[in-house]
C-alpha cells in the first residue's frame, strides 16, 4: 500500500466525537491507507438538502449527514468510498443511516459501509470494515477476476478453524482443514494437507493469498501476495463457487466468532454487516448444542433435519440463556432432534434480526462457511428468508478459495 494515494473516505456521522471514538475511526482508516474527510457543505444548503431528501430528521448532525450524502451523489464533492457511523441504540440515527446507505448505493457507484458505535468501539473493530471498504474502492480490477489461473494457494485463518485450498487452472486440487489452535501451526498443518492432496510442493506455488483473523501473521510467514479481509474474499469465493458471478446475490457466512451478511453485485460487495451481539447468534452456539447433545458438530445438521424446531421454545440472544433453554428442553423430555432443530432456528433468527435487517436481501442467497454444512441451519434460514438457499460445493473453504482465486491475479506481477 505504501506510496499509493490514500483512499478518500467520506464520513457521514452523528455522535462519534462526543462518544470519544473519532480517534478510533482515524486510526482504523490510517491502518489501511485511507483518509477520512467530511464533505464540505454550506450551512445554508443543509435545510434545503434535507427538505429535498424528505426525511424529517430532528437532529442537526443527521441533517448535516443527509446534506453531505446529497453532495456526494450530486458529485459536488468527490470521494472514493463512504463510511456512515451513528450511535448504537439511537433509533432516529438508525433510520437515517439505513436510508442514506440505500440512497448512496442506488444513486452512485460509491461503496458504503455503515456502523453503529458505542464508546467502547475500537480501531481494531473497525479495521476489517474499513479494509473491505478501501479494497472495493481501489481494487475493483482485482475483484473483477472471474477465473483462477496457474497454481495458487489460499489460506483462511478463522477464529474456529483454519482452511487451505490449492487451485490449479480454475480447479480445486487440494484442501486442508483443522480447528484453529496456534495460528501458524494450524496454517502449516492445513497447507501441508492441501499440498499433499494436490501432490505438489510449496515451492511450486505461484501465488499465495491469506484471509481471516490470522491473515497478517500467516501472510508474513508465507510471504503472501495477497493479504485480504474476509468480507471481499468470501463474497468473491461464494459467487465463484455458486456460479453467480454476474448480477445480484446475498452471501451469508455464520462464523465461529462473528457473522457476515454481504449484498453482492457482480461479485463485488455492495453493503455488508459484520459482527454479532452475542455468541448465541454464531456457530459457537451450535457447537455448544452439539456438545450438550453428545454428538459431533457434523451430526447436528442431519439430526436437526429430523426434528421440528417449533416444538421447542428457544432464544439464543444470549448464549448463556440459550444454553439454559436447551438444557430445560431436554429436561422436559423433548427429543434431541427437536432441540437440534430449535437451536438451528434460534441462530438463524438471531442472525436475521440482528444483521440481515441492514442488508438488502437479493436472490440468490448463498450460505457459506463451516456452518453452511449444517443442513438444519440452512433450512431454518431459508424458511425465514422464504427462499431456497444455495450452498455451493466447498462452501466451508470459501475464504481459501476466494484467496486462491484472487491471488492468481498477482502471478503476472512476479
Amino acid at each position, binding site marked *: 500500500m505504501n506510496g499509493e494515494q490514500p483512499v478518500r473516505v467520506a*464520513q457521514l*456521522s*452523528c*455522535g*462519534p*466525537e*462526543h*462518544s*470519544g*471514538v*473519532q*480517534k478510533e475511526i482515524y486510526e482504523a482508516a490510517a491502518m489501511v491507507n485511507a483518509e477520512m474527510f*467530511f464533505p*464540505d*457543505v*454550506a*450551512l*445554508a444548503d*443543509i*435545510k434545503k438538502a434535507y427538505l429535498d431528501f424528505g426525511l424529517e*430528521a*430532528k*437532529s*442537526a*448532525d*443527521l441533517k*448535516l449527514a443527509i446534506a453531505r450524502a446529497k453532495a456526494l451523489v450530486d458529485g459536488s464533492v468527490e470521494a472514493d468510498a463512504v463510511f456512515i457511523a*451513528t*450511535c*448504537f*441504540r*439511537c433509533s*432516529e*440515527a438508525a433510520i437515517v443511516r439505513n436510508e442514506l446507505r440505500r440512497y448512496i448505493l442506488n444513486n452512485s457507484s460509491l461503496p458504503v459501509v455503515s456502523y453503529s*458505535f*458505542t*464508546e*467502547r468501539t475500537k480501531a481494531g473493530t473497525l479495521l476489517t470494515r474499513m479494509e473491505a471498504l478501501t479494497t472495493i474502492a481501489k481494487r475493483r480490477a482485482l475483484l473483477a477476476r472471474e477465473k483462477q489461473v496457474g497454481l495458487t494457494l489460499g489460506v483462511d485463518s478463522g477464529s474456529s478453524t483454519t482452511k487451505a485450498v490449492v487451485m490449479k487452472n480454475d480447479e480445486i486440487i487440494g484442501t486442508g482443514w483443522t480447528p484453529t489452535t496456534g495460528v501458524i501451526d494450524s496454517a502449516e498443518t492445513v497447507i501441508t494437507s492441501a499440498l499433499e492432496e494436490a501432490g505438489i510442493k510449496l515451492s511450486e506455488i505461484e501465488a499465495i493469498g491469506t484471509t481471516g483473523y490470522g491473515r497478517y501473521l500467516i501472510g508474513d510467514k508465507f510471504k503472501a501476495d495477497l493479504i485480504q479481509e474476509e468480507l471481499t474474499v468470501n463474497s468473491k469465493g461464494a459467487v465463484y463457487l455458486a456460479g453467480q458471478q454476474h448480477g445480484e446475490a446475498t452471501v451469508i457466512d455464520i462464523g465461529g466468532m462473528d457473522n457476515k451478511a454481504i449484498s453482492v453485485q457482480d461479485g463485488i460487495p455492495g453493503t455488508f454487516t459484520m459482527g454479532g451481539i452475542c455468541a448465541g447468534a454464531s456457530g459457537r452456539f451450535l457447537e455448544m448444542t452439539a456438545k450438550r447433545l453428545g454428538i459431533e458438530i457434523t451430526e447436528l445438521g442431519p439430526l436437526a433435519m429430523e426434528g421440528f424446531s417449533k416444538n421447542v421454545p428457544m432464544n439464543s440472544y444470549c448464549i448463556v440463556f440459550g444454553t439454559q433453554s436447551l438444557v430445560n428442553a431436554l429436561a422436559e423430555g423433548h427429543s434431541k432432534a427437536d432441540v437440534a432443530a430449535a437451536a438451528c432456528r434460534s441462530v438463524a433468527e438471531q442472525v436475521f434480526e440482528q444483521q440481515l435487517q441492514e442488508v438488502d436481501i437479493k436472490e440468490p442467497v448463498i450460505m457459506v462457511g463451516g456452518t453452511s454444512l449444517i443442513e438444519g441451519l440452512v433450512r431454518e434460514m431459508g424458511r425465514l428468508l422464504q427462499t431456497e438457499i444455495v450452498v455451493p460445493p466447498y462452501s466451508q473453504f470459501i475464504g481459501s478459495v476466494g484467496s486462491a482465486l484472487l491471488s492468481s491475479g498477482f502471478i503476472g506481477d512476479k
Partner: protein
Amino acid sequence: MSKVFIYPSTSLILSDMVERFGHEPLGVAIAIRERIQTPGLDSPPLQMTPEDPKKGLKYAAVEVPSGVRGRMALFGPLIEEAEAAIIINDSDLAFGCMGCSRTNELVKFSVRQRKEIPVLDLNYPSDEEEGLAFVQSIKEFLDSLTKKSGDRKEV
C-alpha cells in the same frame, strides 16, 4: 452577576448578549461556520475521549446512546452550576446549534427540572417584529437577574 446557562449552548450571539448585560454565560462557545468541514455542527472544542460518555452516566442511563451521554458530560455540569437559564426553541442553525436532538430533549428537561432558578423559555423569531420582541425579552430577563443579584448583595 449570575451564571446563565444558554441553549443552544453553542450560540455565540446568545453568549454575547448574556455577557453584555453583565452576566456569565455557561455554554460552549463555538463559531457556527458558513461551511461545515468538521464531523458535526457542534464538534466539541476539546478532545473528547471514551471516558466522557462514562462521565455522562451521571445524567443518562447506559442504554442512552453514547453520543448523548458524551454531550451530557459537557452540558450536565453547566446546568448544575447555572443560576439562571435561557432556552431558545427551534432556532436557526446559524444562531447556534446542537447536533443531537435526543440530547436537546434531555438538556431542556434537565434545565426545567431546576425549578429554583429563573428560566426564560422562548421560541426563535420568524420575522423582524418577533425579532425585536425576542431581544427585548432576553434583555428584560437579564435585567431582572441583575436586580435580583443586586438585591442579594444589599442583603
